[in-house]
């Protein structure tokens, strides 16, 4: 692996960091937004370039030495097919989440604070990319904290009672997770003497083969799993998510639900694959924990979504269920399960950000957060209605849309698994049924004719009814991406699978 593409992962991490340094110096929020968008476009280009050069090069991955200190010392970046594709998907979703919600952002956040809001978005982007590419556990810890702070800041950006309460709840649970991550890192470092992932795995494999340190190693994995589960809102630890995602401004909701929680799952995947090794994790019996947590999440998230009266909270609870799907895919302990999980990371990122952007548009068309006030909103804002429909169908798992592919392959992976098929299949069916149960009434409502035209007093000021060109363009692109992911999935699945093959 030579040439300029070798340096692309470094650029991908540092470009948004530089942009975030510039943001607070800017006075105009439009310039800040345009710079952020330009950075995103460049990053999509860089990650596409990285993907293509990895595709054509004979080496399936490469490690980049930061400061050129060789392996047991120094800090490393590792780039393979999986990392490149995730970086590509994440930057695309982030670009559309900023572009499509400009009207809501301008409405919710005051002019003087907006450059700082974009500063936080750029920082968040840096930390996401660092989590995707880093090869060092302590670097991961630092960027997890950066991610936490930036994510909390973009929830609090729309400053009112609800968002502040949601932010403090999110922050307190997050720091609890970070504390467990740091403790586990300290244990792992004192057991193995390494912070880089590959040297640590060599030591761990040798220790497990000797039968030493079984219990402390199991405890460190469980600590890592719980800390990442808290941050990615897996079921029993999800309590912060509906508040934070439901009350924040639309851009923040889309970014948080689509990307931030995925960054931690990617980190957990890397910890399992690269620090412990799949065989070790299977030997210590940890996959059952992941599987059980995921299965409960799938059902509980869906059931709780049924009882929501506010549109954004409904979509937020649906995220809790979808995170459950990803964990089930990881807990199946088959190659197919991991591939399905990573496909669902990408599919859910595209779908959920689209749902939140469309929901934001529907909310401003209705002038209310409540679902019962949404009657006929899709007639006022046609594009948002179509996007919401596509997103809902994809989340339920209708063929031709992205969500179907990951569910299909999840079911396929369950067939290859050992005992889990008798649990996975019925739970998948029940969860899909409940998904339909809460999404379809919303669809019927937004398309049905309002009975009392102009009779009800809207709770919020009804915004500009005409959506901007950028918002419509974003929704068209996201719908196209969703359908493309649902129909032409084979090459992406193949690339992800080859990425996993070389991840260990």
């Amino acid at each position, binding site marked *: 692996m030579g040439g300029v593409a070798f340096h692309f992962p470094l650029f991908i991490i540092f470009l948004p960091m530089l942009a975030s340094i510039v943001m607070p110096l800017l006075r105009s929020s439009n310039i800040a937004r345009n710079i952020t968008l330009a950075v995103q476009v460049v990053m999509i280009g860089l990650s596409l370039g990285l993907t293509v050069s990895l595709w054509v090069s004979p080496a399936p991955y490469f490690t980049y030495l930061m400061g050129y200190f060789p392996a047991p010392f120094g800090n490393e970046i590792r780039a393979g097919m999986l990392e490149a594709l995730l970086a590509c998907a994440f930057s695309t979703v982030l670009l559309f989440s900023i572009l499509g919600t400009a009207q809501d952002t301008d409405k919710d956040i005051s002019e003087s604070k907006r450059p700082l809001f974009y500063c936080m978005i750029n920082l968040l982007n840096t930390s996401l990319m660092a989590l995707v590419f880093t090869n060092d556990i*302590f670097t991961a*810890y*630092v960027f997890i*904290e950066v991610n*936490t*702070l930036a994510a*909390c*800041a973009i929830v*609090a950006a729309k*400053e*009112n*009672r*609800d968002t*502040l*309460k949601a*932010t*403090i709840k999110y*922050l*307190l649970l997050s*720091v*609890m997770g*970070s*504390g467990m991550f*740091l*403790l586990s890192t*300290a244990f792992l*470092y*004192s057991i193995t003497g390494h*912070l880089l992932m590959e040297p640590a795995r060599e030591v761990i494999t040798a220790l497990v083969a000797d039968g030493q340190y079984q219990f402390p190693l199991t405890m460190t994995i469980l600590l890592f799993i719980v800390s990442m589960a808290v941050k990615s809102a897996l079921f029993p630890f999800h309590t912060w998510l509906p508040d934070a995602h439901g009350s924040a401004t639309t851009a923040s909701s889309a970014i948080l639900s689509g990307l931030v929680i995925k960054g931690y799952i990617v980190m957990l995947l890397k910890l399992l694959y690269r620090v412990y090794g799949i065989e070790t994790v299977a030997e210590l019996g940890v996959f059952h924990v992941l599987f059980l947590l995921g299965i409960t999440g799938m059902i509980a998230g869906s059931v709780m979504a049924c009882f929501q009266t506010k549109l954004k909270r409904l979509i937020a609870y649906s995220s809790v269920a979808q995170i459950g799907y990803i964990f089930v895919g990881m807990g199946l302990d088959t190659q197919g399960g991991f591939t399905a999980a990573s496909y669902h990371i990408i599919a859910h990122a595209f779908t959920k950000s689209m749902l939140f952007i469309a929901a934001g548009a529907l909310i401003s068309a209705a002038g209310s957060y409540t679902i019962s006030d949404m009657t006929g909103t899709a007639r006022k804002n046609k594009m948002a209605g179509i996007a919401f429909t596509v997103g809902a169908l994809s989340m339920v798992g209708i063929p031709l849309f992205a969500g179907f592919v990951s569910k299909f392959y999840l079911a396929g992976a369950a067939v290859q698994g050992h005992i889990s098929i008798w649990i996975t299949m019925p739970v998948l069916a029940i969860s899909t049924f409940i998904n339909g149960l809460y999404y379809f009434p919303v669809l019927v409502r937004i398309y049905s004719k309002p009975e009392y035209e102009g009779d009800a007093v809207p709770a919020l000021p009804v915004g500009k009814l005409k959506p901007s060109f950028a918002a419509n363009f974003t929704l068209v692109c996201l719908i196209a991406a969703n359908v493309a992911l649902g129909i032409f999935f084979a090459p992406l699945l193949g690339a992800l699978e080859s990425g996993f093959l070389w991840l260990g």
Partner: protein
Amino acid sequence: MGLITNFYEATAMVLFGIGFVTLLLQKNLIKKIIGLNIMDSAIFLYLTTTGYITGRSAPIVIDGVVYAGAYVNPLPSALVMTGIVVAVSITAFALALSLKLYEHYGTLDMDKIALMSRGGKG
């Protein structure tokens, strides 16, 4: 006895437990933040202790390297430094957020805040 020889590590774990429970169960936001700091300090104590070996000095080379066994690994101290910086920024953010919450709700009691926001717009 493991507990006596590993006195510092055991203390660190007890402190971690105290900090964790304080963060989880206290109602007052300031006390929660104090709990967070106790928890982080416990991990720093643990890292510092594992990084120190009696009789060895810091790896500062003046008259050439004596022999490798005369020094301790400097990495744990570096980790503690980084960790302290992270803990300080989280604490600052949490305190700033508490100030804002006090402005909006007039209390720092999390239970009362949760009740108020449910009683309001919900």
